[in-house]
């Protein structure tokens, strides 16, 4: 099943810290040997300041072997990190001291220029100190103190006049909020960042593309956790620029887009566009989910679709974003269930659309259901008048009602509208003319 795992491709566009949860998930799923995952984690942590965590992993990785001693450099690194942390804690810069005092903070206004001048004049806090705040935040972030990092970055964002670094600070905030599982705030950051990316005319198209791809990857965390994320992902990914970015350099995101569209009942209209994109990109990306849609809506191959659907289950379960379980209940995986429910409906709809008379047992097979279960399901559909059909229980078939619209009705329908439109047009023309006439008479 590892062949459908997207982690390596996703990780390319994520921050180190953001990859950790993915690895965490992989470890849980046991898709790869545990040693490999641990080794990967260790490599990941080597770039951060989370030395204690790294040491723990090192121990568990080399557990039982001779060298379960923590290597020298790690120990040295730890000492170094701790030293600088302590230094930061104990001797806060004047700016930090300033910011810790709520009364002083009141003095700040929304005008950045004013703030900078005021700080400079009254507290001798120069721009280099403000920049130091950014480095400070970075350090906190590397240590894994994400909420501290957010606090610092937020203040930095308010004070700094350096545009580029402000954008970077935003990225930092986004990552921190995601890692804090603070989805509302993260979504806010995301939108702020998106505005910056889209409005930046100066940066090269290549950078913009790269930024968009990053943003989309990071947004996966938010969208698959936030309650309104399912609409959000569709809104974001289907924007022309973002769709282009996907098609250019991040084809694997199609999986998430496909899932989001399938799961979201209200956005059924995007399906057609999605299919187009999937078909267009099938030469460079396909996985069971996109193939399922292709089978169903391009080839109308119901058997194929059903087979793909079976494979989809594993894919979803193994995906770090989709396969997460509900808290406390390890059996239900919401995305899997919803996906299956909807996919079943898709097959059923399409099947009914092309058939007049269907054997229920066959239908049950296609839908991956037991026969009586399927019958019940269909009955519910009919009852809720979502399906215009009836069941012939003697022969065990479902008979669709074929109803034609009368040709006369069609013609009338098509002409009725014209009448109104012409009327409106005429009125629109006549009114101003009359008004003008009256005005002329008034004179």
């Amino acid at each position, binding site marked *: 099943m590892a062949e459908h795992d997207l982690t390596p491709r996703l990780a390319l566009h994520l921050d180190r810290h953001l990859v950790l949860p993915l690895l965490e998930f992989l470890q849980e799923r046991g898709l790869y040997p545990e040693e490999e995952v641990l080794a990967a984690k260790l490599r990941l942590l080597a770039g951060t300041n989370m030395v204690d965590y790294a040491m723990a992993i090192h121990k568990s990785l080399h557990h039982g072997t001779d060298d379960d001693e923590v290597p020298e450099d790690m120990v040295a690194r730890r000492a170094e990190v701790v030293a600088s942390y302590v230094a930061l804690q104990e001797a806060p810069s004047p700016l930090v001291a300033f910011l810790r005092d709520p009364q002083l903070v009141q003095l700040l206004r929304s005008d950045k220029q004013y703030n900078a001048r005021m700080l400079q004049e009254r507290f001798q806090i120069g721009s280099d100190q403000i920049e130091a705040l950014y480095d400070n935040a970075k350090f906190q972030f590397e240590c894994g103190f994400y909420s501290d990092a957010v606090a610092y970055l937020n203040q930095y964002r308010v004070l700094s006049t350096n545009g580029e670094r402000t954008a970077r600070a935003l990225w930092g905030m986004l990552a921190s909020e995601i890692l804090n599982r603070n989805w509302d705030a993260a979504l806010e950051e995301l939108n702020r960042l998106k505005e910056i990316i889209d409005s930046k005319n100066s940066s090269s198209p290549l950078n913009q593309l790269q930024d968009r791809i990053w943003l989309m990857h990071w947004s996966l965390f938010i969208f698959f956790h936030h309650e309104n994320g399912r609409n959000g992902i569709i809104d974001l990914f289907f924007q022309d620029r973002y769709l*282009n970015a996907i*098609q*250019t350099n991040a084809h694997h995101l199609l999986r998430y887009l496909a899932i989001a569209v399938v799961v979201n009942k209200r956005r*059924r*209209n995007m*399906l*057609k*566009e999605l*299919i*187009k*994109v999937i*078909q*267009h990109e099938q*030469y*460079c990306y396909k996985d069971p989910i996109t193939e399922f849609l292709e089978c169903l*809506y*391009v*080839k*109308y*191959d119901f*058997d194929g679709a059903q087979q793909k659907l079976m494979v989809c289950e594993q894919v979803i379960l193994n995906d770090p974003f989709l396969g997460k379980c509900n808290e406390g209940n390890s059996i239900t995986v919401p995305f899997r269930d919803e996906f299956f429910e909807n996919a079943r409906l*898709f097959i059923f*709809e*399409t099947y*009914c*659309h*092309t*058939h*007049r*008379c*269907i*054997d229920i047992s*066959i239908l049950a097979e296609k839908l991956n259901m037991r026969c009586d279960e399927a019958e019940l399901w269909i009955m519910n559909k009919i009852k809720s008048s*979502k*399906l*215009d059909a009836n069941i012939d229980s003697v*022969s065990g*078939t479902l008979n*669709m009602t*074929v*109803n*034609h*619209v009368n*040709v006369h009705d*069609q*013609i009338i*329908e*098509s*002409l009725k*509208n*014209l009448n*109104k*439109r*012409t009327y*409106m*047009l005429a009125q*629109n*023309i006549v009114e101003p003319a009359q008004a003008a006439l009256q005005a002329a008479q008034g004179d």
Partner: protein
Amino acid sequence: MASRFWGQGDSESEEEEEEVESEQGSDSDDDGGRGGAGHSSGGNRYLKNQEDDSDESDTGHRVIRSLRDKRNEEMRSIVDQMRNAMKINDWVSLQESFEKLNKHLEKVVRVNESTEVPKMYIKALVLLEDFLAEALANKEAKKKMSSSNAKALNAMKQKLKKNNKQYEEQIQKCREHPESFEDEAADDKDMDDDDDDDADESDAEIEDPDKIALSESEEERDEDDDDKEGWEQKRSKKDKLMDKQFLKDPSEITWDIVDKKLKEIVASRGKKGTGRIERVEQLTFLTRVAKTPAQKLEILFHVISAQFDVNPSLLGHMPVNVWKKCVNNMLLVLDILQQYPNIVVDTSFEPDEKETQKGADYNGTIHVVGDLVAFLERLDSEFLKTLQCTDPYTKDYVQRLREEPLFLVVAQNVQDYLERVGNLKAAAKVALRRVELVYYKPQEVYDAMRKLAEQPEDTLDDDAEAGDEHQAIDDNRGPSPFVVIPEVVPRKPTFPESGRTLMDGLMSLIYKYGDERTKARAMLCDIYHHAISDEFSVARDLLLMSHLQDGVQLMDISSQILFNRVMAQLGLCAFRAGLINEAHGCLTELYSTGRVKELLAQGVQQSRYHEKTPEQERLERRRQMPYHMHINLELLEATHLICAMLIEVPNMAASTYDKRRPMSKTFRRLLEVSERQTFVGPPENVRDHVMAATRALNKGDHQKAFSVINSLEIWKLLRNRDHVLEMLKLKIKEEALRTYLFSYSSCYESLSLNQLTTMFDLSEQHAHSIVSKMMMHEELHASWDQPTKCIVFHSVDQTRLQGLLFQMADKLSVLVEGNERAYEARTGGTLEGVPPRRRGEGQDSSNMGKWQENFVSSQGRQGGGNRFGYSGRGGGSGQSGGHQRDRGNQGSRGGYGGGSRFQDGRGRNQSGSSARGGDGGARMVNLNRVGRV
């Protein structure tokens, strides 16, 4: 050969003679001008000028021959005259001749630059003296003479006596050793013959370089050698006056002399009477005596441009041998540049007079004016021209083609050099030239070229080697060059394993540094290459992302041609991949005018209605592609027609009631023509074949259709022929099934799947999927009966009246839309209160939307669903955007609503027919705008 050696010996001996004087002269004379010149060297100057004058005056066949020879020749003829006169005892003419001889003597002496009287003259005097004595002795004869004759005899007697006193000594010598005088006369004659031959030969070459280029290369080489040496020799005689300054002691030649001479030669360009080839030779000689590397470089630049000058007309091409020498010169230039990195070549910098005087040990940068890229581009276009002019079925063509690596190596080296000096813009230009030689080669051809280039030198091309040897001979014979440049630049091209790698490398350079045109062309080449390597999706994405179609109208004609060729290849590629719609989209525009040959620059097409001026024709000829780059037109036509057939036949069957807009007008027209024929013979050409297949397919006879297509000859041109034919067979079956259902569905109440699969030889699953697709797309009003595996048809036929009503509704809605639009255009605002008609509304329903709704809407589209207004409201979702975009031609887009099959779900190739580019002369295919969805 003997005479040649002799000739050389002669010149050497004379050089020795002359050294004495010129040694005095050269110091004072060279920059001092004429006034201060010594007596004898002053003569030199004068003579040289005179030589120039005479050259200018004689315009006919120029027999090139040194002045001295000419004078001697004249003298000899006078002597001959005298002999004749003696024989008939004609003293009158004898007297005349004698006077002439004396006059002439002065000239000869001057030319020979010796105080010595020519031996010939002395001999004539001796002869005359003897004859006079004899005549005087013969008293009787004397009496018989006429009075005038006798008078002349007496006058002669006195004159001779007076004259001979001056030369008494020599006459004495002559009488003692008559044989030594005899010799020279004979030799002189010999030499002259030789001269004449050479002159004739060279004349021939000047007049008709093509002839030489066309003759067998072996011969040509020999002849070439002869020529060359002939030239060499002649020059050594004729230009002796010039060369003697150089041929003497190498240490005596200064930078100034060379520079002055160079300027002189350069200034002579284009003047009447200066031979182009001579200029090349003179300059080549100068390169050898150049004093500094920089000067050598400068002269080499002049040599190269002189070589480009050899062929004066735009139509002809540079002689092949000159081209090769030019290549060698380029390599030499690069050698110098590599050896002396402080020499900088540029065009912008205005070097001072003495710039090139700085020697090899000079540390700063030396600027030399020149444009390597321009030379290289010229070299390339000359190469192309030879190929254009050569008959592709001859051995010459192949031979010439084999020289391509020769150019590639220069290009590679120039590019390396430019990259090294950091002139990346220019390097990108050079890279483009290389790309243009590689892009059209499939991997097989590329491999062949690579192998050819990697062969050891002697088997590779004897020509080049012969040339080198030749060069060596030249060098040995002359004084060894002052500036010896080792061959530092590689003489062999290096090619990466696959053409793709090479292309990628060059591409990345061009994309980074090239200018707009370079980039666009490179992009087109890249797409072309992807297309011939069967990577359709990559090629397509490149084309779409680069937005080349938008700007192609504004590009130059050769780029437009390239674009057309790219589209053609893209079409072929799509066809091979089984993407019929895409292939059709690429090719249809190309064939809509019937000027394919012209659009692809693969031959001139005579148009019946439009007479071309000779000027246009010439221009067109110059744009032609060389034969080896041609795209097979038959294959292209077959591809286009087959694609059109596969699309159009079901389309026609589906729209028997209403006149649906044809997908391919060209195909429809051809079909009409072929249907008008009273008698249908067996198919002969590609078109006949496809028409026959169409007739079969129309009836649903897929076997016959395929066998007719299969019998086409051209399939053997395809690399993966079996695969393509297999694909084609399947497609034909599918379309036959569709056509059958369209045509005969009204005759059936139900139809079993089993029957369909046996009829069309398709798998059950495949047939099921095709029929389902038709149902979903409302092309077929039927549904499956699953337990019995039958198709049950719904009879939803409309009456004639109803059909007409639909059409009327259609037209009315078009009318209303037109009015609304006019209103909007007029007022600038949208109509208020009008029921939603386009925006937003198309979003909510679709074929795969809520299926109940779909049932309703689907019914509205029976009969083809081409009612724009209606289907736009009911079921045509997602088309509102397209509708707005294409307002201009929406009236004519019936097939849009229902025919989503034809859109292939991708929105490609569907914008209406596009405006042709301006005048008829713009060779453009504006292929359908392809917007990335």
